[in-house]
């Protein structure tokens, strides 16, 4: 194959990457904006992810769409790691940052086979841990990682910048505002979220995300080469793929093919089918058309150079067992109660943690910004799982978006009428701070906002001594626990500025176990 043809393939690959990235970000962006009754969403990308197929097969009811993940698995046996090079949107981002850093990355590096093995070891650790109910695959799975990072840092960050840039322009009286105003209106309608979204400790997720991107300036496609568990799975299969690059006798041994190879190998010096992302850079770079694509069965007895060594596998399994056990023996697993509530449809905590892949799609979809990533509230194995935090937002009565976008049904898909009955928790009034108890004056903001038609928060007229010692008639608020669904709007709107005088706790939360 000559360089011209190689260039064409490379262009096609770039186009494919751009296309899939746009599709990914578009679907994610709109998931929180419009009615999602029958909308395809980022779930489409999760369904073609074999790691999520694995997670889904391990716990709870099996979801058939995940069988789609068999398609890329089978295709990998034919095409090699095409998925990483052509489809994965996170891979595309890595590629972009690699390109940004291509001027400063040394062309030649010492053998890094050891580092390339990390990802296989990581995969084994995570798979073993997941067998024992410690579900951490989502931390590194590229789709989960990208969805989570986009929802929690990338989109809110861009939103902040865009909103500030356009708003000041659109509000000014200058001539420029005529140009900026339509831009602002368009963005307001399609891109910006109504109110700026904020997330608990978003900078941690952001630091990891941007750190991973910046590492590409140090090594090409750092995440894909060294860390990605999905890449490891595909790499392991790609060893046996039909696709291979063949160096023909035209070769002058110039090693130009290693010049832009994503794993610094190239077909001439160090060809690794498990690491080749089918990016076609080498074919383009070859000055003498010495690289051909061959389709052949892997030769018998061919020892893949990059398999993790036996001791590494054993250590990985050991690490997986440790990782599996440690969070499960933390005291939090047994102590009574928990200081948080989950979004509607969440399965019983134990099952929820097995099913949730920490992708944060629900956080992007939630219109009120109520769903927040956990840090350690839900234990070590609950890191980045969704919490419903009423002081940030409330569960909108007329909305089921989070349950619709959850790709794994860790939040069970609920019909609107079901969700309106679904009890997330129960509101409790703090009588030492509520105005209508402690200060003896009227308020009733929580009663006003309570969305339950029969009113789970009600007013009763009582006489009490206010803080001046005067007997006063006050419309006091009280909760009807049986009617309360725990949506948290009362906590969200409570006008007290120190801490809400009504809070929703997990009491009577309706969360079913998968038996």
């Amino acid at each position, binding site marked *: 194959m000559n360089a011209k043809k190689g260039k064409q393939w490379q262009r096609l690959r770039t186009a494919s990457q751009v296309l899939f990235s746009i599709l990914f970000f578009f679907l994610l962006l709109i998931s929180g*904006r419009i009615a999602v009754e029958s909308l395809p969403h980022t779930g489409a990308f999760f369904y073609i992810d074999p790691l999520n197929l694995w997670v889904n097969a391990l716990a709870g009811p099996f979801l058939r769409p995940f069988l789609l993940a068999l398609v890329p698995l089978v295709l990998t046996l034919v095409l090699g790691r095409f998925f990483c090079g052509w489809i994965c949107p996170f891979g595309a981002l890595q590629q972009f940052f690699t390109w940004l850093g291509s001027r400063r990355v040394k062309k030649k590096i010492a053998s890094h086979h050891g580092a390339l093995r990390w990802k296989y070891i990581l995969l084994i650790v995570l798979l073993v841990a997941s067998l024992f109910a410690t579900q951490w695959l989502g931390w590194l799975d590229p789709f989960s990682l990208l969805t989570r990072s986009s929802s929690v840092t990338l989109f809110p960050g861009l939103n902040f910048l865009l909103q500030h840039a356009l*708003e*000041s322009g659109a*509000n000014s009286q200058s001539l420029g505002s005529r140009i900026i105003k339509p831009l602002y209106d368009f963005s*307001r309608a399609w891109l910006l979220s*109504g*109110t700026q979204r904020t997330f608990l400790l978003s900078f941690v997720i952001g630091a990891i995300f941007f750190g991973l991107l910046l590492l590409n300036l140090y090594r090409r496609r750092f995440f894909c080469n060294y860390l990605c568990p999905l890449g490891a799975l595909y790499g392991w299969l790609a060893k046996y793929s039909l696709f291979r690059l063949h160096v023909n006798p035209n070769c002058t041994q110039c090693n130009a093919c290693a010049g832009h190879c994503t794993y610094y190998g190239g077909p001439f010096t160090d060809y690794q089918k498990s690491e080749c992302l089918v990016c076609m850079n080498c074919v383009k770079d070859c000055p003498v058309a010495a690289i051909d694509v061959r389709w052949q069965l892997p030769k018998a007895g061919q020892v893949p150079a990059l398999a993790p060594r036996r001791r590494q596998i054993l250590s990985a399994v050991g690490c997986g067992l440790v990782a599996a056990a440690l969070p499960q023996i933390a005291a939090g697993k047994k102590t009574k109660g928990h200081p948080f509530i989950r979004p509607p449809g969440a399965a019983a905590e134990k099952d929820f943690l097995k099913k949730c892949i920490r992708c944060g799609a629900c956080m992007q979809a939630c*219109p*009120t910004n109520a769903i927040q990533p956990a840090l350690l509230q839900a234990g070590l194995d609950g890191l980045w799982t969704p919490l419903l935090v009423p002081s940030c937002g409330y569960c*909108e*009565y*007329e*909305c089921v978006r989070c349950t619709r976008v959850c790709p794994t049904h860790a939040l069970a898909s609920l019909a609107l009428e079901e969700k309106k009955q679904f009890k997330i928790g129960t509101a409790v009034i703090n009588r030492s701070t509520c*105005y209508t108890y402690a200060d003896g*004056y*009227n*308020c*009733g*903001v929580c*009663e*006003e*906002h*309570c*969305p*339950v*038609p*029969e*009113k789970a928060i009600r*007013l009763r007229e009582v006489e009490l001594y206010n803080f001046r010692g005067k007997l006063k008639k006050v*419309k006091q608020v009280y909760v009807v626990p049986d009617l309360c669904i725990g949506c948290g709007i009362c906590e969200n*709107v*409570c*006008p007290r*500025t120190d801490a809400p005088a009504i809070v929703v706790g997990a009491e009577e939360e309706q969360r079913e176990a998968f038996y």
Partner: protein
Amino acid sequence: MPMKRRTFVKNGLLFSSALTLPSLLPGQNKTSGPLVAQVQGDSPYEIAKRAIAMIGGMDKIVSRTDVVMVKPNIGWNRTVEQAACTNPEVLRAVIELAFAAGAKKVVVMDHTCHTAEDCYERSGIAAMAKKAGAEVRYCDENRLVSHDFHGDYLGKWPVFRDFLEVDKFINVPILKHHGSAGLTIAMKNLYGILGGNRGKLHGDMGENIADLANGFSNHLVLVDAFRVLTRNGPIGGRLSDVELRKTVIATTHIMHADVAAAALFGMNPGQLEFLQAAFNRKMGEIETARIPIQSLSI
């Protein structure tokens, strides 16, 4: 002989005070203030148009090249049938009449309680307002300015600039039950121009509502009482709490609009704290008998 200045002043005072005397006498059912039109009918659009015509037409209110703010109640993520937000058909009538009177621009806007996008959409107001040619605007925290309402309870409070920077302000509330205020009509609807921690204004709510309405001028008030949420307001949700009253009330006097609407709801206006507070501020009459109400059924 020319009259002495002293005599002139004395007589002038005497005569003019004599003229005002009858109005001070009790039992005199003399009404005061601008006309309040109360129209009943099957089409919310038609009765809104008729009510505005009865009080002199939109031409009297909106001048050519005016920028007009139409402020409905879009507070909640609720449908028309649930009657928590202003009826879009009533709104359409107002917008069309404003344009017909020569308005340069009509803006529809409210500071919602639920997520703004959801409320604007589900209430049907955004779609209707756009169709009628109005600009649908969302509240933007960066556009808050401090406004002085000069009240004893409500002084300075953040207000969205958009509501202040218009030529005409048309208040189009919906009449409905309200847990803490008793009812929410036109005066309470003005909470929607406010930013900040509005919950804090629920303490002495009646006094706050009165100060708010007293410190802000409305050029027209049109109360939508087509569907009325009679219980579990202001958010409602249950259709069995909604009653068809098929009425709108139009006037330029905000307090009288509320008094008339309260009476229509079936409440004694004098028992509503915010109307009592408004009466104490001499904003207007609190008895329907003292207000020139003209009813019509079409």
